[in-house]
């Protein structure tokens, strides 16, 4: 009887034993596959945490002649790892005039001085997105009428409640902005919004143009027309967001290779405090997962070796009989290996299915929790979040998928077969060393 036939018959006739070995192998490989798939998902979750911690950098190009231009900005946005969200900002002073050229009245109460040439001027902040400007996000400005400035707007302005009422202006009206530094161009702007400062500026410190009442917000085109008028857009500052704050340094060094701007004269500032604060702890959490996986794999290997030893040891009797019948030791050993591999090939394939089912149910559970979490966040503490949440939408999270990969299955096949070969050899060694007579004497 050939060893193949013997192996086949042993497997088929000893159904109970075969099923047991099948179950043990199935459980161990399912365990490893499931663990690996969950580990991959935790990497995605960690990426999402990093993404929502956000990392950005600011390019300060104010002191360069042509400042930031559209071509440089679009090249930066094309850099790998940069999100499509950005803000471009410029700060300047301009004189407020009516359409017929009359100067408008500004607030001077509480100003430390009214500098010469600035008697009718205010500080103008040009933004690609005025809602994220620090005046609104930090200083407590609130838009009480109209809408915020976006990239779609050109030649528009958001003015203070005071400036509007002092000069009888309202939404939809036009006013003229006159450049007072470097050029004397002027641009007509339509009022699209009116804001109110919730917290007053401490009196006696700021010059007149910096008083909250005299500050206005405009779009970048207006700035470029007032100070360059060359048909191109110019920006003093650019804020760009990294998809993954861990890549921020690489992104910045890539950005610095973009031509068309002298980077040495720009100041680039990283803004990733939240990420830096959480970094070590987040890594500790990921390491914990790696440790767990390593422990599981190590223990699975040991366990498999032990179980196989138990299996072989139970067959001393059979081995002795076969040896006595004149079968070579190698032949008997091969039979044992073939038996187990026959079971293993099937179980490994099946474990792909079982672990996929487990992974799927874990994924579903997670999804349920996620929706529950969202609801918690919405019913949150103070009323302020609703307006601040505008930035949140810019974080595009990667959806977490828990799936068993074919590569992992291949790994199981390779490692699994290796362990089976090794442990059968090890377990069989003491038996194989003995003569048939010794074995038959030792038998229970």
């Amino acid at each position, binding site marked *: 009887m050939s060893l193949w036939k013997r192996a086949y018959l042993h497997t088929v006739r000893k159904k109970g034993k075969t099923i047991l070995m099948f179950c043990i192998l199935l459980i161990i490989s399912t365990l490893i596959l499931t663990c690996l798939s969950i580990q991959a998902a935790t990497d995605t979750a960690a990426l999402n945490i990093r993404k929502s911690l956000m990392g950005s950098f600011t390019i300060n190009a104010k002191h360069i002649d042509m400042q930031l231009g559209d071509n440089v900005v679009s090249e930066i946005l094309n850099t790998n790892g940069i999100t499509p969200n950005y803000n471009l900002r410029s700060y300047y002073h301009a004189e407020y005039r009516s359409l017929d050229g009359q100067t408008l009245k500004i607030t001077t109460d509480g100003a430390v001085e009214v500098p010469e040439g600035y008697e009718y001027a205010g500080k103008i902040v040009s933004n690609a997105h005025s809602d994220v400007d620090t005046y609104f996000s930090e200083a407590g400005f609130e838009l009480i009428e109209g809408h915020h400035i976006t990239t779609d707007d050109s030649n528009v302005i958001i003015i203070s409640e005071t400036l509007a009422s002092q000069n009888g202006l309202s939404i939809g009206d036009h006013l003229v902005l006159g450049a007072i530094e470097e050029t004397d161009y002027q641009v007509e702007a339509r009022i699209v919004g009116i804001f109110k400062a919730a917290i007053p500026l401490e009196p006696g410190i700021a010059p007149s143009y910096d008083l909250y009442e005299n500050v206005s917000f405009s779009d970048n085109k207006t700035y470029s027309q007032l100070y360059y008028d060359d048909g191109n857009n110019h920006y003093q500052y650019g804020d760009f967001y990294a998809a993954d704050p861990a890549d921020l340094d690489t992104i910045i060094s890539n950005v610095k290779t973009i031509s068309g701007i002298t980077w040495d004269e720009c*100041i680039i500032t990283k803004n990733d405090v939240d990420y830096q604060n959480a970094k070590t702890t987040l890594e500790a959490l990921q390491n914990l997962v790696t440790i*767990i996986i390593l422990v599981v794999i190590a223990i699975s290997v040991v366990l498999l070796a032990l179980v196989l030893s138990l299996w072989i040891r139970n067959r001393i009797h059979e081995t002795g009989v076969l040896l006595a019948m004149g079968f070579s030791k190698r032949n008997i050993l091969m039979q044992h290996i073939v038996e187990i591999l026959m079971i293993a090939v099937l179980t490994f394939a099946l474990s792909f299915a079982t672990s996929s089912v487990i992974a799927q149910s874990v994924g579903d559970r997670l999804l349920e929790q996620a929706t529950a979490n969202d609801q918690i*966040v919405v019913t949150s503490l103070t009323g302020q979040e609703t307006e601040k949440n505008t930035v949140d939408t810019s974080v595009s999270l990667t959806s977490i998928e828990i799936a068993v990969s074919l590569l992992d299955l291949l790994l199981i096949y390779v490692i699994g077969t290796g362990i089976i070969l090794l442990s059968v050899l090890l377990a069989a060694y003491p038996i194989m060393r003995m003569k048939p007579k010794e074995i038959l004497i030792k038998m229970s």
Partner: protein
Amino acid sequence: MNLFKRAFLYVTRKRGKSLLLFSIILVISTLVLCGLASLDAEEETSTELRGTTGASFTVNRNLSTGGWGNGNGGSYSTQDFISSEMVEKIVNIDGIEAYDTSSTTILKFYDRSGNYYECINPTGYAPADSQYYVNTTINSQYSSVFLSQTFSLVEGRHITDSDENVILISKDLSDKHGLKLGDKISTVNDPDNNDPTVEVEIVGIFNVNIDKTDEKNNYNMASYYDYSNYAFTDITAMEKLLTNYKGERPSDGYSSVDFFVSDPENLESIIIEAQKINSINWDNFTITANNEVYERTASSMSDMSSLIRTLIIVIVAISMGIITLILSMWVKSRVQETGILLAAGISKTSILLQHIFEVGFIAIFSFPLSYLASKIFAGNIGSLFGKTADNVIVTTQHFSLVCGAGIVILILAIFISCVPTMRLKPKEILSKMS
């Protein structure tokens, strides 16, 4: 031969088999112990991770419910300041990690011989060029500029609530005037108003990290001062400096206090608890929650921890499955022995008990050993990754859980795997034997 003796003899004579079963129980209980320890480590690290988002709430004077008065320094609000007793009561709430006050005053600095220290980037207008933007703090580490990494301490230490007459200055200022740790500088609020001079000791020097020329920072009073002209001093020094302005300036209390919570998940309940403190008249104060970073990251963080938790639960559950199967294998290989024992007139209960005692005998040794093994294992693997090692700790609670659950599972597994054999008559068993 009684069943104890049989069990003992089986275990000692079948040394190889016993050793194997011993190893299997040892390995699996070690795995489960490590799993339980990791579960705790996950919990702890996740809480720490949430904590790094720096969630806090701020108590401010409610200026809209208070009156206004006029005094030495112009108009001021007559609203109550936040008193130290009030702060103490709030800090006593569980879950508050630290707090800091923020109030600023413009001070002049000069040396022992009365010469003013010129500030960084002077304007050329003498009275303004010795003015510094000074924050009163009781815990400068938690000051918003340090938390945001705008400033970072490069020398010395932070100011705490036990400090008296100390100051933190910028690196630029210390370089410009050759000031170093331990040096003393004199400060005064307004020398023309007969204000007292207070001598303060430099205990720390900070570096300015951010681009101050970025005009996005220029939206309030603070922006008129170069960051290098910022300084931090303690409440005792400030009380002396402002003794002429009682009631007007924050010398009798604080105008705003930030309370930092260790776990942002509890922020809401802590705020509610603070509002329940009866001795505080909350009409005079406002509370603002600052947890934007946490709100942004909360769902991803909870994803992460439920994934890890699931991972561990899967591992523990599957380990239990494995041990049950292996015990079945063990019992199945003893059909022949069972048949002979039955034929020798030994009752089924007695045989079952013998099996249980055998496994129990082995388990008594492998459980304690697994406790030691997992301690070493968790520690060693953990140390590969540094910090995590401190977190994965196997406790006696884990151990008692594993022992308790382990014994139940072992007994159950033997019962289940014995059922097919025990149902048969001795004759049937012997004829079934291989």
